[in-house]
C-alpha cells in the first residue's frame, strides 16, 4: 500500500540531491540547510514514534535542527527570482511545443482528481493501492510523478534535467519554501503552550452577554481572532463555539445551531484570509509566485475578508434567531 511516508521519502531524495549539488558548488550554508530538511523528511515518522515511546533524543536533535534552519536562513538575503534558461530558449520551446506544455502541466490536477476519485477501487492484490487515511495527499504526490513522465515525453528532455531544473527552482525559492511548514509548526507549539486557551479565556471575559448583537459580534470576532492567531479555523471552531457560540447564542438566545455552526466556521475562514499563520494559503503562493512582499496575497485578500466578515455578521444576525 502506498503510504504518505513514501512520498516524504521522495521529497527527502530531492532535498538530498539539492544538498549535494550545493556542497559541490561550495555553498556550505544552504547545503546544510537542505541536508537537515532531507533528514527531517526521511526520519520524520521515526522521530515521532520514538518520542512517543519515551526516546526523546531524536526529537530534541530535530528541534536543534529546526533552530539551525532558522539561523542559516537569517544569514542569507531574501532569494531573488532567477528564470530558467534564456528568454530565447523559452520562446523557442513555446513555439516548438505549444499547447502540449499545458497538457503536461494539467496532468497534475487531472491525475490528482482521477486518483482521488478512484482510490477506493484501486487495489493491489487484496490491499488498497492508496492509503485511505491520506488519499488526496498521496494522489497529489503520484500525480506529480505522472506529470514528470508526461513532461519527459513531451519535451524530450533527459530525466536528469528535471532534477536540475527542479533543484534550480528550489534554490531560487531558497529558505522561503520552509516558511509554510515552520509557521504551521508554530501553530502546534502555540497549542501545546496554551496560547489558544489564553485567547479564548481573555475573550470570554469581555462580552456583554445580554445583547444578541453583542453575542453575534463576539462569536464572529472570536472566530476571526483565534483563527488569525492559530492560522486555522478548524482549531478555532471547537474552542470559540464552546466558549461563546453554544452557551450564549444557542442556549441563552435560542439560535439555530446548524446556522451558528456553518456561519461561524465561514467567519473563521475570513480570518484565514488575513493571517500569515495560514501558511499553506497565504505564504506558499507568495513564495511560488516569487512575490518580493510575502504579505502580497494577504494584501490582495483583506478587503474581501473584511467585507465578507461584515456580510456574515449581518447574515448571522438575521438568520440565526428563529
Amino acid at each position, binding site marked *: 500500500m502506498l503510504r504518505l511516508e513514501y512520498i516524504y521519502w521522495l*521529497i527527502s531524495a530531492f532535498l538530498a540531491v539539492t544538498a549535494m549539488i550545493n556542497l559541490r558548488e561550495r555553498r556550505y550554508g544552504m547545503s546544510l540547510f537542505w541536508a537537515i530538511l532531507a533528514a*527531517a523528511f526521511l*526520519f520524520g515518522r521515526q522521530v515521532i514514534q520514538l518520542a512517543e515511546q519515551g526516546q526523546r533524543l531524536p*526529537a*530534541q536533535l*530535530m*528541534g536543534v535542527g*529546526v533552530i539551525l534552519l532558522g539561523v542559516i536562513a*537569517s544569514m542569507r538575503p531574501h532569494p531573488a527570482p532567477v528564470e*530558467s534558461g534564456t528568454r530565447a530558449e523559452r520562446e523557442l*520551446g*513555446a513555439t516548438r*511545443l505549444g499547447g502540449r*506544455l*499545458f497538457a503536461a*502541466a*494539467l496532468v*497534475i*490536477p*487531472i491525475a490528482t*482528481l482521477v486518483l482521488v476519485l478512484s482510490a477506493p477501487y484501486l487495489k493491489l492484490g487484496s490491499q488498497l493501492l492508496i492509503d485511505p487515511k491520506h488519499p*488526496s*495527499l498521496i494522489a497529489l504526490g503520484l500525480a*506529480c510523478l505522472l506529470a514528470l513522465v508526461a*513532461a519527459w515525453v513531451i*519535451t524530450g528532455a533527459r530525466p536528469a*534535467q528535471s532534477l536540475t*531544473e*527542479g533543484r534550480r*527552482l528550489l534554490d531560487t525559492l531558497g529558505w522561503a*519554501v520552509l516558511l509554510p511548514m*515552520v509557521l*504551521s*509548526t*508554530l501553530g*502546534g*507549539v*502555540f497549542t*501545546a*503552550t*496554551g496560547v489558544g486557551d*489564553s485567547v479564548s479565556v481573555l475573550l470570554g471575559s469581555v462580552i456583554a452577554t445580554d445583547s444578541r448583537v453583542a453575542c453575534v459580534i463576539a462569536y464572529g470576532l472570536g472566530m476571526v481572532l483565534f483563527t488569525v492567531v492559530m492560522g486555522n479555523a478548524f482549531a478555532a*471552531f471547537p474552542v470559540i463555539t464552546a466558549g461563546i457560540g453554544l452557551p450564549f447564542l*444557542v442556549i441563552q438566545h435560542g439560535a439555530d*445551531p*446548524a446556522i451558528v455552526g*456553518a456561519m461561524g*466556521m*465561514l467567519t473563521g475562514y475570513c480570518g484565514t484570509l488575513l493571517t*500569515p499563520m495560514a501558511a499553506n494559503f497565504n505564504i*506558499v*503562493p*507568495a513564495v*511560488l*509566485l516569487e*512575490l518580493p512582499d510575502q504579505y502580497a*496575497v494577504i494584501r490582495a485578500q483583506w478587503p*474581501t475578508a473584511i467585507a*465578507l466578515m461584515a*456580510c456574515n455578521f449581518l447574515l448571522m444576525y438575521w438568520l440565526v434567531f428563529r
Partner: protein
Amino acid sequence: MNHWPLIGVGVVMLGFVLRLNPVLVVVSAGLVSGLAAGMSIPDLLELLGTSFVSNRTLFLFVLTLPVIGLLEHYGLREQAQRFIGRIRSLDLARLLISYLGIRQILSMFGLLHVAGHAQTVRPLVAPMSEAAAANMRNAPLTETERQQIRAMAAATDNVGLFFGEDVFIAFGAVLLIHGFFQQNGIELDPLQIAIWALPTAIAAFVIHAMRIARMQSRLKAADQEQQDAAP
C-alpha cells in the same frame, strides 16, 4: 492561568513588522512561547522537533517543482501568455472571475485538490492573468502591477476554495461542526450545515468578483493616464 505564552504571538507580529528573517522570527516565537509557558529546554526542543515533522504536509508542494521547473525551462509561461494573447476577448476580469466560479463549484463537489497554488495558479492562472491584463492595455504593465495581478490570482484561488468547500457535506469542516454539536448533545443533519454555507458562498463570489472588476478598471485607468501623459 498562565497568559505569558502570548508573548510568542507578540514576537511573531513584531518580527514580521520589523521585516526580520521570517523563518528565524517564527522559530524564535516558538522558543519564547515555550519558555514563557515554563517548559524546560529539553522538553521545548522535543516539542519543536515533533511539531516540525508533524507538519511535513506543508512541504508537499515542492514535488511539483521538478515538473514545473522543466516545463518552464521549455517555455510554459511564455506559452500561457501567447495563448491568452490569442483570445482577444478574454480580459483579466473574465479570466479571474471564471476561475473563481470554477474553483468554487469544484470545491462544492469536494474536488479540492484539483486546483491550487502549486497545481494551477503558478503554472497557469498567474501567467495567464498577467497576459490577459497586458492584452487590454496599450502601455506595458509595471513590475508592481504584475505582482499585484499575481497576488490577486492567488487570492482568487483562496476565496474560491474556502467559500465553496463547506457546501460539500463530506468535507472536514462540516463533519467537525456536526461532531462538535453531537458531543454536546445536539443532533444536526450535515445537509443542513452544508446548505447554510450557500448564502456566504454567494456573497463571497459577488464581493470578490466586484473587486476583480475594480482591479481591471484601475489598471485601465492607469493605462489611460499614461496615454494622456505621453506627448
